[in-house]
């Protein structure tokens, strides 16, 4: 069974007066349920575009994203979220993504929390939109506050929290809806190095506890290696999948110390390999830009 299937997606942005930009070129991917996949690549490789297409914020020029519905049994498919705008595929329990929906949770970089609400109310936002009872919401919120280690901060306004704590809230807010797939767009990008390492541990822990399908986009080679059970390296112009890795580090990270893993020879070897790959891509872009100029 597949949780998510990205089927031959192309994305072309036409710029008035310029050449069309091929942000994504025939990208295909299948995700198994419970898979944690990190996506890495130099800027301009289309990784954020890809995530926005999966989230339903952008509609691709060609191809489609198909979402498996694990709740469905038999032929009829149940589609949660804003359903009217979502097309169906006959004979399967799947739906084609045509817009945002509650079954795909998002975690953004800092600044996407609702600063006018307290920590609790940010986390309660999704269940409240779904019309859950306030008793149910309370149970969910308390459980999640504990899960992300913020049990004493529920009543605080989010703007009083540090960057790392705010991202804990963002994770909890996303989990409150119990989404099938979690899409993370550079969630730790704005954090300082130490907080970032701690939060990587939390992401792994949450993945282990909830067994959600997670796609994580990052700039950091180290983060992509450490968190990605599966790692996709994308290349720019046109945006495409350059290489794919299966990695043991995320699983090992559940038991071993992250510092040890990141210092281990096989981790370092992979890191250098990927770094030189991305380095070459950047060189190539610079070369192209140089030719054009």
């Amino acid at each position, binding site marked *: 069974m597949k949780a998510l299937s990205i089927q031959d997606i192309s994305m072309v942005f036409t710029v008035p007066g310029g050449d069309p930009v091929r942000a994504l070129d025939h990208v295909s991917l299948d995700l198994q349920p419970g898979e944690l996949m990190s996506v890495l690549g130099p800027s301009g490789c289309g990784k954020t575009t890809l995530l926005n297409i999966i989230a339903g914020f952008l509609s691709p020029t060609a191809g489609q994203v198909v979402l498996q519905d694990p709740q469905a049994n038999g032929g009829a498919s149940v589609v949660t979220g804003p359903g009217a705008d979502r097309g169906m595929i006959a004979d399967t329990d799947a739906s084609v993504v045509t817009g945002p929906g509650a079954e795909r949770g998002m975690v*953004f970089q800092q600044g996407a929390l609702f600063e006018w609400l307290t920590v609790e109310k940010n986390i309660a936002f999704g269940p409240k939109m779904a019309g859950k009872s306030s008793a149910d919401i309370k149970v969910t919120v308390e459980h999640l506050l504990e899960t992300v280690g913020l049990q004493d901060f529920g009543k605080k306004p989010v703007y009083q929290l540090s960057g790392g704590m705010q991202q804990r809230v963002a994770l909890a807010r996303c989990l409150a809806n119990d989404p099938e797939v979690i899409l993370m767009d550079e969630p730790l990008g704005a954090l300082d190095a130490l907080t970032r390492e701690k939060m990587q541990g939390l992401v792994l822990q949450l993945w282990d506890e909830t067994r959600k399908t997670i796609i994580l986009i990052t700039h950091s080679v180290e983060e992509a290696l450490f968190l990605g059970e599966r790692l996709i390296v994308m290349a720019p112009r046109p945006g495409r999948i350059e290489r794919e890795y299966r990695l043991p580090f995320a699983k090992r990270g559940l038991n071993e110390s992250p510092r040890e893993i990141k210092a281990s020879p096989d981790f370092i070897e992979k890191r250098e390999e990927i770094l030189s790959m991305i380095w070459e891509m950047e060189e190539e872009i610079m070369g192209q830009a140089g030719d054009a100029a």
Partner: protein
Amino acid sequence: MSSQQQPSGWMVWLGLADNSFTRQKTVKFGDASAVNSGRGYGVISVLAFIILWWVATAAEWINPIYWPGLDAVFDRVGKLANEGFRNIALWDHIWISVYRVLSGVVYGALIGIPLGFAMGLWSVAKGIFDPIVEFIRPIPPLALIPLIILWFGIDEFAKIFLLALASLFIMIIAARAGVNSVRVSKVHAAYSLGASKLQVLLRVILPNALPEIFTGLRTAMGVCWGTVVAAELVAADRGIGSMIMIAKNFLNTDIVVIGIVIIGLIGFAIEILMRMLERKLIPWRGKG
């Protein structure tokens, strides 16, 4: 360094001494946070003005018709407070002006905020109203007084209409700016959490726009306070502006000066009050 004596809290508050942090800085010129409050000099300048006023009028350097004596002003304040002005209590003159401003701002906001939201969210509304707003915006509200007198006369409705108009355009622009200021990731987050369009509007776009809306209200209050006084100068039998105008006709310079001081004080009080309200109601301002 520690051998230096710590300045007393009072001296720091008055701005006559550096606070302990500023004292450690070697670069002060150009660092705005190293500029002290200067309250001590403020006290001196106010006292100097009052003393100059007292000396100049007591020594009869100035004709009281141009500028009243300090003692005469105090006498007149007592009389106005007790007897009122032209059979209307001083408080009523003040209140009617404040009431006109509040009404104008409220009506302006009630129409302006939804209109600003519509313009920020919907291209049709933007297209229809943008040329009108951009055209009327640079016209000072006072320039509309003659037209409004022609249309509605000089009764209460005419004044509140003028003030509502003055605040309307400020509120439209503020609400539209508030809508435009929403970070798209917040809207995306809300949709991903299952919010409908209406829920995104009420629970994300509206609260996100509140700081801008409040700034608009504050500006509208200030502009309307200036406009109401001017409108009353032109045509009114009550209100703080009319009091000044009538007093001028009788050469009661002391009342004119009192009226001006009251206008200044109330304008200042409105600003302070709005800032306090803002801190209380929108503590998240600027912290997204």
